[in-house]
């Protein structure tokens, strides 16, 4: 069963590895990748907590709406757990 998630629509300053074009968008978890140190802390030499990392699959229709080139094509991106909310 596909697990639906939404990327939190946050716009924090600093080093963030969640692309802005995916914030607020809904996708399904393609797979869990395991835990990785949080780059938002690592970038500033802070002690980095491990965060679960997921590959999330988004449709072009979800990302670009009516402007999508081919609505059923997909983008898979790696998103850290603290950026995701389950639906």
């Amino acid at each position, binding site marked *: 069963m596909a697990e639906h998630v939404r990327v939190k629509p946050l716009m924090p300053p600093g080093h963030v590895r969640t*692309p802005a074009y995916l914030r607020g968008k809904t996708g399904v978890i393609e797979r869990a990748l395991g835990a990785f140190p949080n780059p938002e802390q690592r970038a500033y030499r802070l002690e980095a907590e491990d965060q679960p990392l997921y590959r999330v699959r988004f449709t072009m229709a979800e990302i670009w709406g009516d402007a999508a080139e081919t609505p059923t094509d997909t983008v898979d991106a790696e998103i850290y757990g603290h950026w995701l909310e389950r639906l």
Partner: protein
Amino acid sequence: MPHDHPSHSHDGTSPSGHPYRADNDTPLTYWQRMEIAVRELLVEKGLLTPEEIARQIDAMDARSPARGAAVVARAWTDPGFKARLLKDAPAACREAGVDIGPLNLMVVENTPHEHNLVVCTLCSCYPRDLLGLPPDWYKTRAYRSRAVIEPRAVLREFGVDLPESVQLRVHDSTADMRYIVLPARPEGTDGMTADALAALVTRDAMIGTGLPHRP
């Protein structure tokens, strides 16, 4: 036409007809100065020698798409290896004798029904241990944005006209994984050796912007 007058260079072109490139004795940027300062300090303090630095640069330059091509060709000729490669790419690469260091690698497979394309929209993440240094276009804002906005148009510019019936999957390497595409084995290659097959596998075929050569 400059090429018609190889002995003339009054117009600022070389004898071969190309413009002279300006000398690069312009002021250094902040980061160039920083790199030189750190490098000289490391050498002065005896932590590194210039020879070690040169050797490391040689090692980086020695990485080329030939490594990725060898892995692809092995996958084309050895179904068991292909299954292991798709399941655990770092372990399979090590098994094939390709040292990919601590790289977290994923291999995504092209089939008659699915095509994969790799991009890093945030910067220029690239599986350098398998493909060498990324091409300049891979790092441009144009590729990084258009690969997720209009990937089929980008593919057409690379000479790949994807039928609408083929599912396109773009992989944005935003975090800790790196990706290479396992292209579909071209038709007419039955009986070819892995070495001969590897010669058909281009860098772009492993990024997903191209297809392997046909024999």
